[in-house]
């Protein structure tokens, strides 16, 4: 293990902090985002959405709009391919029933968005309103209305993990704590709304649907739009624009098929940009949940049994995240007897989607506050208690597989020794300290990288991974490391789906891992080709040629040496261009562990909660570009703090309407609300990756809510059982 943000471990590029390749364009406004995109003949689309949470559609009358000045086309579900009707098509535009407030019903294209908006008001939809449900416990109630009337209940997915004998484990336990928690629906809160511009070229010889979109996965957009519209994937070209945040929410095609249908009807390109209200009401938040956690331990501090029952909101369609929540619930601990039941429950809200470590924060707030309570009952230091029970490589997880290399112990030890943990608290009784740890398993997936040599010796790097957190820089740095050149001598580009092999999405903290492997393959092959070319020019064996620091040289003859820059000038005259590809679908993504120490202040007169000091520790494998690793750690922490203290979908229960669909009322933490988020990078290299990489984008969100709740307990004596921890609720508890 190495600790610190500047460890290069003998690397020349990896572990340094070069300026990101896309930085200049980003800070000068030259970077092109979806809303900036324009094309000749562009029309503007708007989507009519359901005002009801649950209702049958009796009729849709568009006649008043059809001849409206400036309106060019109207589409409804009838314009989608009608054969093989799927839930995915129903999600794009409802056919017979609306399942949440905001469910799309129709699309309009007009010469400007004002006319399109006015046109929406003239579409007459008759509804038969049905009773609605908003929470997972409501959905589990047998008397609740069915969201999908073809099913027996609202449970769309049940996962169960079992280890050992849970009953015997609790029987042998000296201390048992059981608690129930409710967490609110929260949104990823990215700055840039979803958007798509689509141009459907319908010419018989060369039919092509061009999509310019803000997405975490251009290939997912291509594939899913192709399925919905019954097109061959090769007929769609998706160009990923720069992306203003996603955090897991930008995988779904949402407006793409609607814009495509409008474009097909008009023969013109159509752009749709969501409003913030549409983002909240009609894209995928992360689920609210009901979490039951029961943990038993011996008086010596060994956990013998742990049980979790997790009920997560699915939203209107299946595809929830309870599987991940169940996997992560106790993954940081070595426990012999475990039982986990997880349920995704259909409710009348927009379909949930991923949000940093989807599902893990929900279960972790339960686990880590109960762990804290047991440590307190045993009069043990909370980090020491966790260390006694810490999981490690080879320990079997509740879902079956054994852990690969994992840094729980390293993170806990770093926390225990850290000045923040050991410094005395202020004498004031309204400030105290809480700790918690968290887990994310990380993912991988297919990835493709193409390299070529510019005439000036720089390396052209083409990739398909949308750059959401600095991956252009990190992949370029890994390529540069292999070639022995500077990071700035690699020029990375993220390209459209016609210009690179299949590349899976930027999610699951997978990109630096999988694209790093692909980049390593491509760079290794490129280096081999360059060596062979130099050897060919010199008439020597490639085995006697080496390449270091951008210089190719003979290991036998000191007079034979050429820089990559000079060799590049002559490539065309010495055999032709040199290119190289790396394509892979690697296994071996290893988990990342987070830990938080958070000092919290509670105003006992008002219940207002402030974060006084915060330090995050995270096992990152190897930090390729420490700035971006720290950025992920800080960003996840801030989102976890928002989830803990401020954020929630607040519903008017009479109309099932979200009452706070703006950033004014959906209160996310701002810089002024927070102290500096201190970072401690812990490096436990992943042996499966050529540079030891673990994904770093997710674990950081999982532990702040529990750390804050644990600190609040130490101030108020109240064990929090609800997120967000609102001042009003805290005051009610304090008064009791």
């Amino acid at each position: 293990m190495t600790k610190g943000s500047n460890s290069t471990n003998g690397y020349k590029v990896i572990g340094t902090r070069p300026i990101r390749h896309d930085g200049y364009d980003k800070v000068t406004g030259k970077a092109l985002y979806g809303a900036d995109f324009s094309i000749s003949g562009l029309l503007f689309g708007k989507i009519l959405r359901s005002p009801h949470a649950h209702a049958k559609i009796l009729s849709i009358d568009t006649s008043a709009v059809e001849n409206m000045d400036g309106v060019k086309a109207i589409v409804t579900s009838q314009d989608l391919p009608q054969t093989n009707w799927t839930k995915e098509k129903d999600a794009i535009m409802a056919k017979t029933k609306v399942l949440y407030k905001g469910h799309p019903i129709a699309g309009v294209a007009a010469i400007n968005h004002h006319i399109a908006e006015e046109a929406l008001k003239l579409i007459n939809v008759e509804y038969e309103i049905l009773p609605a449900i908003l929470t997972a416990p409501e959905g589990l109630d047998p008397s609740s209305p069915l969201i999908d009337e073809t099913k027996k209940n609202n449970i769309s997915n049940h996962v169960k993990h079992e280890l050992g004998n849970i009953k015997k484990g609790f029987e042998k336990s000296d201390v048992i704590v059981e608690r129930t928690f409710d967490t609110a629906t929260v949104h990823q809160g990215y700055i840039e709304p979803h958007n798509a511009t689509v141009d459907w070229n319908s010419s018989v010889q060369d039919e092509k649907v061009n999509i310019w979109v803000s997405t975490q996965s251009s290939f997912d957009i291509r594939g899913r739009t192709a399925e919905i519209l019954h097109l061959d994937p090769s007929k769609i070209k998706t160009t990923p624009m720069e992306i203003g945040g996603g955090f897991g929410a930008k995988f779904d095609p949402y407006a793409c098929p609607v814009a495509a249908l409008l474009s097909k009807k008009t023969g013109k390109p159509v752009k749709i940009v969501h409003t913030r209200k549409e983002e909240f009401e009609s894209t995928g938040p992360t689920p609210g949940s009901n979490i039951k956690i029961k943990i038993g331990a011996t008086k010596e501090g060994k956990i013998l049994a742990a049980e979790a029952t997790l009920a997560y909101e699915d939203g209107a369609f299946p595809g929830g995240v309870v599987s991940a929540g169940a996997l992560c619930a106790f993954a940081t601990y070595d426990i012999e007897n475990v039982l986990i039941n997880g349920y995704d429950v259909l409710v009348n809200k927009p379909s949930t989607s991923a949000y940093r470590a989807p599902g893990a924060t929900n279960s972790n707030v339960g686990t880590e506050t109960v762990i804290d309570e047991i440590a307190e009952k045993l009069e043990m230091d909370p980090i020491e208690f966790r260390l006694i029970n810490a999981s490690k490589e080879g320990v079997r997880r509740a879902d079956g597989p054994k852990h690969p290399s994992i840094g729980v112990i390293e993170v806990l030890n770093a926390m225990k020794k850290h000045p923040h943990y050991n410094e005395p608290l202020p004498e004031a009784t309204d400030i105290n300290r809480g700790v918690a740890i968290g887990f994310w398993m990380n993912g991988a997936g297919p990835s493709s990288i193409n390299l070529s040599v510019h005439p000036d010796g720089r390396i052209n790097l083409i990739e398909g991974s949308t750059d959401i957190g600095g991956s252009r820089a990190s992949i370029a740095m890994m390529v540069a490391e292999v070639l022995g050149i500077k990071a700035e001598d690699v020029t990375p580009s993220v390209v459209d789906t016609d210009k690179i092999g299949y590349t899976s999405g930027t999610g699951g903290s997978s990109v630096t891992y999988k694209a790093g492997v692909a980049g390593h393959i491509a760079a290794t092959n490129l280096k081999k080709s360059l060596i062979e070319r130099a050897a060919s020019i010199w008439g020597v064996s490639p085995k006697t040629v080496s390449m270091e620091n951008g210089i190719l040289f003979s290991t036998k003859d000191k007079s034979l040496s050429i820089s990559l820059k000079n060799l590049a000038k002559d490539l065309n005259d010495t055999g032709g261009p040199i290119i190289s590809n790396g394509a892979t679908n690697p296994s071996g993504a290893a988990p990342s562990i987070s830990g938080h120490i958070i000092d919290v202040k509670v105003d006992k007169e008002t219940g207002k909660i402030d974060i006084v000091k915060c330090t995050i520790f995270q096992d990152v494998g190897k930090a390729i570009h420490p700035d971006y690793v720290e950025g992920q750690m800080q960003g996840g922490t801030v989102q976890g703090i928002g989830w803990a203290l401020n954020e929630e979908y607040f519903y008017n229960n009479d109309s099932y309407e979200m009452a706070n669909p703006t950033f004014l009322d959906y209160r996310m933490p701002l810089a002024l609300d927070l102290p500096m988020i201190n970072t401690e990078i812990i490096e436990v290299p992943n042996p499966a990756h050529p540079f030891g990489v673990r994904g770093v984008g997710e674990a950081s969100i999982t532990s702040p809510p529990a750390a804050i709740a644990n600190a609040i307990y130490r101030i108020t004596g109240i064990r929090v059982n609800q997120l967000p921890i609102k001042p009003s609720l805290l005051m009610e508890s304090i008064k009791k």
Partner: protein
Amino acid sequence: MATVFIPSLMIDMTSGKQRIEVPGSNVRDIINSIDKLYPGVKGRLVENHKIKPNISVAVDGEISPLGILEKVAPNSEVHFIPAVGGGAN
């Protein structure tokens, strides 16, 4: 023979057995071997010659990107676990 861990929600199909040792050099062979012992298991795991999209197969602790084509050693552990959805992968 490889040891296959049966998911909790499928042990009703394997007479309550949580672990089964079966022969096979890859995941496809393993599933076919289980299906001979406990007919119907294959249908729960496989669709169109692929592992179902809501299931992941892990061999010796690693989620396999190859699915039924993943090689299995005589002493391997094979797990069928719920696929993690959303942005996780």
